[in-house]
């Protein structure tokens, strides 16, 4: 049962009629709720006393209580100490500028979250595309042979692709670098326009005028739209210098085409 605040105060100050006070005594000793309420009201009474908010009758009664009780004197003193201590506490209130910033952040945060989601989506999509592209390239390199790979017999192979799309003069012949570890050079020579027939080709590799490699039955390879000849050359038979690949249809003697390149070992 809640007790009226004024009744509590009157009880504390000894101003409650005896019958009511006796009834409150009984309740006080029967449970702890009234005890807590009285303690709370006593705090309030002390505060009102310290801030001179008591009526003159209440103040006289309170002073008389203090005179009789050292504990009450101690509580009053302790409350003053408490007020002094609490006034020294740093103000936890945020500055107006901080408040404004927090308000602005509150408004902008949904938009920022949306933007972050969109950026994350784009980033993830790009990652997936890159992963897909990498796996395609890896698969392609496994099919066609990489620039530097190792054969089953442990011999390193280097692949060089002579594209037909780049028109070059004699002075701008492409350079093919062969590492010292490579034992085999697979020279891929692109043919353009792409031949329609799947016939064999006569191919010669010339160093100056010396034929260093030749074959009359080089098959045509195709990957998609690209058609090329593949020349497996032992790197032991070649050295640094200018080379020309000369090739013609096996059945069509004479109409040969050539592709120069510079080899560096």
């Amino acid at each position, binding site marked *: 049962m809640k007790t009226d605040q004024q009744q509590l105060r009157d009880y504390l100050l000894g101003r409650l009629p005896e019958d009511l006070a006796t009834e409150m005594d009984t309740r006080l000793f*029967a449970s702890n709720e009234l005890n807590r309420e009285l303690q709370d009201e006593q705090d309030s009474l002390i505060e009102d006393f310290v801030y001179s908010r008591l009526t003159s009758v209440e103040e006289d009664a309170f002073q008389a209580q203090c005179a009789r009780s050292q504990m009450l004197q101690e509580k009053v003193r302790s409350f003053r100490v408490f007020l002094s201590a609490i006034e020294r506490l740093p103000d936890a209130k945020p500055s107006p500028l901080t408040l404004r910033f927090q308000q602005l952040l509150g408004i902008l945060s949904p938009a920022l979250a949306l933007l972050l989601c969109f950026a994350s989506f784009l980033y993830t999509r790009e990652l997936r595309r890159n992963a897909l592209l990498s796996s395609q390239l890896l698969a392609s390199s496994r099919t066609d042979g990489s620039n530097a790979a190792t054969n089953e017999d442990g011999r390193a192979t280097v692949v060089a692709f002579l594209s037909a799309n780049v028109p070059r003069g004699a002075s701008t012949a492409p350079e093919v670098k062969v590492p010292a570890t490579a034992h085999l050079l697979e020279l891929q020579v692109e043919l353009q326009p792409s031949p329609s027939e799947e016939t064999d080709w006569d191919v010669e590799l010339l160093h100056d005028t010396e034929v260093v490699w030749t074959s009359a039955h080089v098959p045509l390879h195709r990957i998609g739209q690209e058609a090329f000849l593949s020349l497996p050359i032992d790197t032991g038979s070649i050295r640094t210098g200018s080379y020309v690949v000369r090739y013609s249809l096996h059945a069509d003697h004479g109409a040969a085409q050539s592709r120069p390149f510079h080899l560096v070992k």
Partner: protein
Amino acid sequence: MTKGQSIPEVDAKVSRQRHITREGFASLLAALGDTPPGGAHYEQLRAKLIFFFSRRLLAFPEDLADEVLDRLAYRLSQHTEIASAEAFALGIARHVAQEQSGRKDQTQNVDHTFFDNVSAPTVTLSNEEEIVHMEHCLKKLPSSDARLLRGYYCATGNNQIKARKSLAETLDVSAIALRQRVFLARQRLRKCMTAAQDKNRKQGKNGK
């Protein structure tokens, strides 16, 4: 009249024989459901007794409360059958109050210096150390408690009423619930202060 002379130490005090023994005190704690060294129920009963004697305008309510507790402990140590220690304590308290009623009219000396400048919290040099302890305890409280106490007590006059109303609205609680929160926060603060004082007392003893 000085502060030291204001309360007659001997004449007005209850003349009593202390019955309490170690066994009696243990019986009292057991009857109240306390386990040493806590004694929370013991302190609650003592606080109730002090309220009881204070409202009767009897001098030295703390001493009278101790007298009741002594007598109660004695009865318990004599194996008196007691159904409710608190109800029994009330009975003893009424008896002690009757004994004291004859002394009620005796002169009470009021320490007038104590009431000087009461509305302005005065800080003396002796208080400074205690304020520092209190500050330390305030900082140890959960930050929500410290903010609550500051918000509740720092405004004065009419501003205080507005500030408390605004605080209750901010916390979305009623004025009564706000007071309860403040009361609990101050209880935590008191516990911290009591612990600090006990620690100082122990250090003082060890220093000797």
